[in-house]
């Protein structure tokens, strides 16, 4: 029991920390492709300047993403050995495909993206940027496929018994296109685009507020605003599609998301509220019958509630799931309102006149990040007590040879390392932003700079 809780805390902590970075890499990758594409098309130095500035920030984010990502691949083996044996036939294939098709592409061309500016033609450099972006998109494909298989297993059969039970693949493409893969992948991609776009919006809003680098900050802001507006709206459709899928495939999760217990009743939709799981009751502001309407377009069809499931086969952290889900929804709506309002102001030619709007954008960088995290917590907590839905319980998936003490040791280690990393990340990001998208200058000035700052160079 203790080992299970510790192993779950460790996994949640390491994956949540990791997941700050990949969405930023994907989203920033898209923005870089657009910026560099504009440079290639127009030859305008402004676009070159902004591309090079964001490449520097991309490098920092990508670096931490890689460092914390490797941990994830091996954590299945270290902490979840029984799970690894159970799903290796299926989950492993997706991870292997991710490594060879996505990471190799991404990391290979990253070298050219970061250091190739003076070594290859601008077309080849643009191609490298595109490949890094595609690589990050592909890695999302395989990891979401693997996770979706855990939510909605397909294309497999069960062999063996007792400790040797495992899932074996019968149809590779049915596994890849399992019932929830596509809709969840699109949902994740768009979440990533928003994370990247809002980082660019935030930094440029800050420059505009400080009245600095305006000739670069304003066009950068507009590029990111276009991306943010399109994908905030698209996320509404993708999210709705995703919820529909959950209703069909994982009714217990959906019931937990809206705290719906009674299967004979219509289901409400809450705007906000609080769930008392022992009294099986939610209080808050709601649209009566809202969830029923969303799924069936009427106000009378009953929806499967949590009580339709055995107590040990349904999630227990109902309030947490409920809150996470509603935080995500609230942020989604806020992002739509914010981007539509800003786009309207742009059309009126007054985008940069409203100081308060820039202040909001400067802080809004946290919103997509929180929504991404909250969405994943909803998905993963809502699947409990299963690690593979309907097949393998989380409590049966552990490494039986690893003791609680060992997990505590590594958990403390990871906590210390990740806190340090996060502080350094914020420090360096802040410094880069303060330094600004200025001319990177010639080799000579850089070297003179280093000699000035570093006496070791002179002898």
């Amino acid at each position, binding site marked *: 029991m203790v080992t299970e809780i510790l192993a779950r805390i460790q996994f949640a902590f390491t994956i949540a920390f990791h997941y700050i970075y990949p969405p930023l890499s994907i989203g920033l990758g898209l923005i870089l492709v657009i910026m560099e594409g504009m440079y290639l098309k127009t030859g305008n130095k402004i676009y070159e300047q902004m591309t*090079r500035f964001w490449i520097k920030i991309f490098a*920092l984010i990508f*670096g931490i993403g*890689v*460092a914390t990502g*490797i*941990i994830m*691949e*091996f954590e*299945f*083996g*270290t902490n979840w*050995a029984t799970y*690894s*044996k159970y*799903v*290796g*036939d299926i989950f*492993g*294939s997706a*991870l*292997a*495909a991710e*490594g*060879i*098709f996505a990471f*190799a*592409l991404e*990391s*290979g061309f990253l*070298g050219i993206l*970061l*250091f*190739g500016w003076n070594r*290859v033609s601008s077309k080849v450099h643009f191609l490298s940027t595109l490949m890094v972006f595609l690589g990050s998109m592909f890695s999302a494909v395989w990891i979401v496929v693997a996770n979706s298989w855990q939510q909605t297993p397909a294309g497999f059969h069960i*062999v063996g018994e007792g400790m*040797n039970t495992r899932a074996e*693949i*019968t149809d*590779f493409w049915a596994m890849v296109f399992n019932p929830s893969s596509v809709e969840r992948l699109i949902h994740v991609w768009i979440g990533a685009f928003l994370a990247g776009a809002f980082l660019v919006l935030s930094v440029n809003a800050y420059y505009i507020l400080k009245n600095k680098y305006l000739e670069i900050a304003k066009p950068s802001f507009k590029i990111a605003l276009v991306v943010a507006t399109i994908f905030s709206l698209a996320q509404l459709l993708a999210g709705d599609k995703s919820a529909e899928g959950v209703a069909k495939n994982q009714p217990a999760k959906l019931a937990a998301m809206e705290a719906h217990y009674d299967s004979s009743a219509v289901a409400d939709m809450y705007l906000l509220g609080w769930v008392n799981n022992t009294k099986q009751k939610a209080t808050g502001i709601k649209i009566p019958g809202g969830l029923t309407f969303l799924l069936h377009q009427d106000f009378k069809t009953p929806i499967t509630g949590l009580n339709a499931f055995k107590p040990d086969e349904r999630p227990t952290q109902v309030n947490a799931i409920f809150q996470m889900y509603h935080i995500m929804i609230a942020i989604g709506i806020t992002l739509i309102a914010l981007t539509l309002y800003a786009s309207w102001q742009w059309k009126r030619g007054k985008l940069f006149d409203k100081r308060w709007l820039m202040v909001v954008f400067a802080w809004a960088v946290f919103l997509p990040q929180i929504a991404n995290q909250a969405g994943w917590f909803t998905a993963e907590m809502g699947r409990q007590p299963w690690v593979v839905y309907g097949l393998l319980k989380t409590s049966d998936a552990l*490494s039986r*040879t*690893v003791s609680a003490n*060992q997990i505590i*040791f*590594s958990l403390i280690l990871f906590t210390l*390392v990740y806190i340090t*990393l996060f502080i*350094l990340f914020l420090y*360096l990001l802040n*410094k880069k932003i303060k330094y600004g998208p200025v001319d*990177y200058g*010639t*080799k000579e000035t850089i*070297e003179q*700079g280093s000699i000035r*700052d*570093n006496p*070791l*160079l002179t002898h």
Partner: protein
Amino acid sequence: METFLGIDYNFWWFLVFGAVISGYAILDGFDLGAGALHLFLKKETSRRIALNAIGPVWDGNEVWLVIGGGALFAGFPVAYAAIFSGFYIPFMVFMIGLIWRAVSIEFRSKEPGLKWRLIWDFIYSFACIVIALSLGLMLGNVALGLPLNEQHEFIGNWLSFFNPFSIMVAITTLALFMLHGAIYLAMKTEKRLYTKLTILAKNFTVFFVVSFGITTLYTLLYIPHLSDKIRSNPVYFTLPLIMFLAIANIPRQLNKGKYRYAFISSSVTIASLLAMVALEVFPNLLYATNDIKNSITITNGASSLKTMKTLLLIAAIGTPLVGIYTSFVFWTFKGKVKLDEMSY
């Protein structure tokens, strides 16, 4: 047992996995070696050149580890589960090392200050040494085997990983990576730094040959069964032969100043060393020291035939692609390192 070109699928995947791990050891081996010897370079410019020599490629090299992990997980999930849960503590240390290696390269150049850079130089070099040592330690223990229960789960104590043989393998791994890294850096540098690296490469050759010799001697005297397989068939003797020729060729090419050939020789040394371990262990992936019946083999530890076929197809499509863009990247950054405004 279904076969492809006369070889059964599990064995094919064993070969693929071995190739990926060798690829990782050769490619990330020079990055780690360059990192381990980083503090031997005293000047700031030298350190920057050394970092930029691996700068554009180290991340791509590390991906081979990710592919190897995926290959083991997918093809031999039982071994994946046993090895990583069994080596829990050393593997956590290894991974923390990887984190610090990655971020110290990235962080170091972000501040011009002397103290900042010195701190990161230490963290970077220390992380690389820890990574090399823990890799070697785990390799040594895989060669020896571990006590496993009937469900193929590790039942020993992690302190037993620190046995003399595995510690020697760990030191030998570090020495080989440092030699390999020095040769790589020598290829990428010129003038005084180049001269310095040629001297370092020669010293590391001595370091490697001595530690390798002691390990071999120890193995032959105290763990003779580790060379049973090689004695069983004279054809297998070609493997140590190739390795010794490759090792002997390293100082020869170093003296001639032909660093590319020396680099090929150190790469062959790494690959043949791993091939020897694989040959001794085969057909086990993890040998059970308490009861041979509990060993994880390429048969009882493998995924289904369907998955093996899918994996081979994935590898057949993926490998040429990876080959093409890896060569493209190495080709783009060929020649001596030149620092510019995008450099670390």
